[in-house]
């Protein structure tokens, strides 16, 4: 992790405490454009806290964030969004009662706004076109973007959010347990979408405690346990089994064997 210029975002010595509980203790983490990093660890390892620090939800007590090599202080989620950090949480930000294309442009309607004299209005045609094209670009075929989002399957909903992140030029895509509620086929699709985002030059962080899912797509792994970094491994450094063992045992046995 020495070459400073390569990382999109870098977290150095990040600590975060909630009252007496130390959620993160001097954690290092970094991700570069065009790579998928698997952030793995058991429940309570600090994965969620770390991504919330990277999404501007939590302000760290100690440590430093660097964005494209420059010191960064994230104030709130909106600030992170404006930088190009797009976080897809487990409970998706999809409005079921609204159509797919209205969901797609939600909160970013500027791109589909047109002027009529002194008035500005939402061009539904433009919004439909944006949604359709953007979803096609990440390889998602939708029957009709006029359908309510409620009709989509879990995997399709995930893919809408990924398509949205890619279209609005997210530089960093954070996926929080994306496959936890999906069928095997749908999980496979979401993994393909993540690879599409990576190929488009996006830095992807994939949070999960399921090593089998993350192993096929991630380039590197960062293992967290009890709020500290157990290590960072390239894909060919560890087997799937070794990685699983590290997560389960908190690293003690795996480290002992090293």
């Amino acid at each position: 992790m020495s070459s400073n210029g390569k990382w999109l975002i870098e977290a150095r010595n990040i600590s975060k405490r909630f009252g007496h509980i130390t959620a993160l203790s001097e954690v290092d983490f970094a991700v570069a454009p065009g790579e998928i990093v698997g952030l793995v660890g058991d429940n309570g390892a600090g994965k969620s806290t770390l991504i919330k620090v990277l999404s501007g939800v939590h302000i760290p007590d100690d440590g430093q964030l660097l964005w494209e090599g420059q010191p960064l202080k994230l104030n709130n989620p909106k600030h992170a969004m404006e930088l190009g950090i797009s976080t897809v949480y487990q409970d998706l930000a999809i409005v079921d009662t609204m159509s797919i294309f209205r969901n797609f442009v939600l909160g970013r309607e500027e791109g589909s706004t047109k002027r009529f004299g002194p008035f500005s209005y939402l061009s539904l045609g433009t919004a439909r076109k944006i949604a359709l094209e953007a979803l096609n670009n990440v390889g998602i075929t939708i029957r009709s973007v006029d359908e309510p989002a409620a009709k989509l399957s879990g995997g399709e909903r995930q893919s809408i959010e990924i398509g949205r992140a890619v279209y609005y030029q997210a530089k960093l895509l954070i996926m929080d347990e994306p496959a936890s509620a999906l069928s095997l086929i749908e999980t496979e699709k979401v993994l393909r979408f993540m690879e599409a985002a990576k190929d488009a030059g996006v830095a992807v962080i994939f949070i999960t405690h399921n090593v089998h899912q993350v192993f096929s797509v991630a380039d590197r792994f960062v293992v967290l346990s009890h709020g500290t970094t157990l290590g960072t491994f390239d894909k060919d450094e560890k087997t799937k089994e070794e990685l699983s063992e590290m997560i389960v045992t908190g690293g003690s046995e795996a480290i002992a064997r090293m």
Partner: protein
Amino acid sequence: MAEAATAAPAAETTLDRAKAFLAFRPETAAILALITVSIVFSFTAEDFTTKAAFYSIITLASERGIVACGVAILLIAGHFDLSVGSVLGLTAIIVGTLMADMPSSAAVPLALVIALSIGLLQGFAVVKLGIPSFILTLGGLLLWRGVGYVISEGLFIIVQRDDTLLQIFSHRLDTGLYVTCFWFLGVVVLGTLFLQRTRFGNWVFATGGNYRAAKEQGVPTDLVLILLFGLSAFLAGLAGTVQMPRHLYIESNRGRLLELEIIAACAIGGTRIWGGYGSVIGAALGVIAVSTIQVGLARSGVPAEWFDGFVGLLIVFAVVINRSVERRNLGERVE
């Protein structure tokens, strides 16, 4: 969900789009209800198919409809406004009282600003204090009614019916039609454009459909709600003003129980009571259906008390249809 691999992507025809558009409309029940009650009353009611009956329906619907548009938009954003009847009455009382001392050109704007402020205040309380809107505006219902009684001292206020400004709101044309209907039409058209064709409209649906998601996508949900509470009260105040010249005087009870009729009309018109779904046109059609029942019953020579029962039946009828339309459109995922 099954693989749709055979379907050609992006080959969307105009017909498909029209179908998708129609299948997503919330107005279906209101249209059916309107046709049904019209057919029934054309047999039972005297002179129901005359111009006079039609104009009566339109006039009653126009005053209620202006209120319903604001309430429907707020319902779509996920919140109730039970105070509209009281705000309507209070605004009329304020206009009537002020006009004893000042010209209507000052009294009317002042009263409308007061109505708007009441709404913004209620919205602020709901958003910042986290009080459920149902309870807060129930408080508003009682409070603003009380303020109206204090101002009017419980007495009738004579309306200066030939005042020019009031005539602009509610002139009776030679045909017997009140110009109120054009105000109603204007509010419906503007409300629909606002909901369907502005980014703010998109925010309204999102705020009511999934509050957390709307916030995560950067929608200023607090601002949206405060402004919509303001709009609801403003339109109630406008309706109160528009209604004035049709009567000789304003009674302290003006607008009492109106809030229930309005919510009934919104429900008939396909507005989802949990938010996120509905239309201004649906609410307008719901209001016309309710007004048709009122006029139809009066012309059928039955006691006026039957009105509530008939509206009740209509609500059940409409909600059954709306639920099935909703379920077909939104699937089982959405409660």
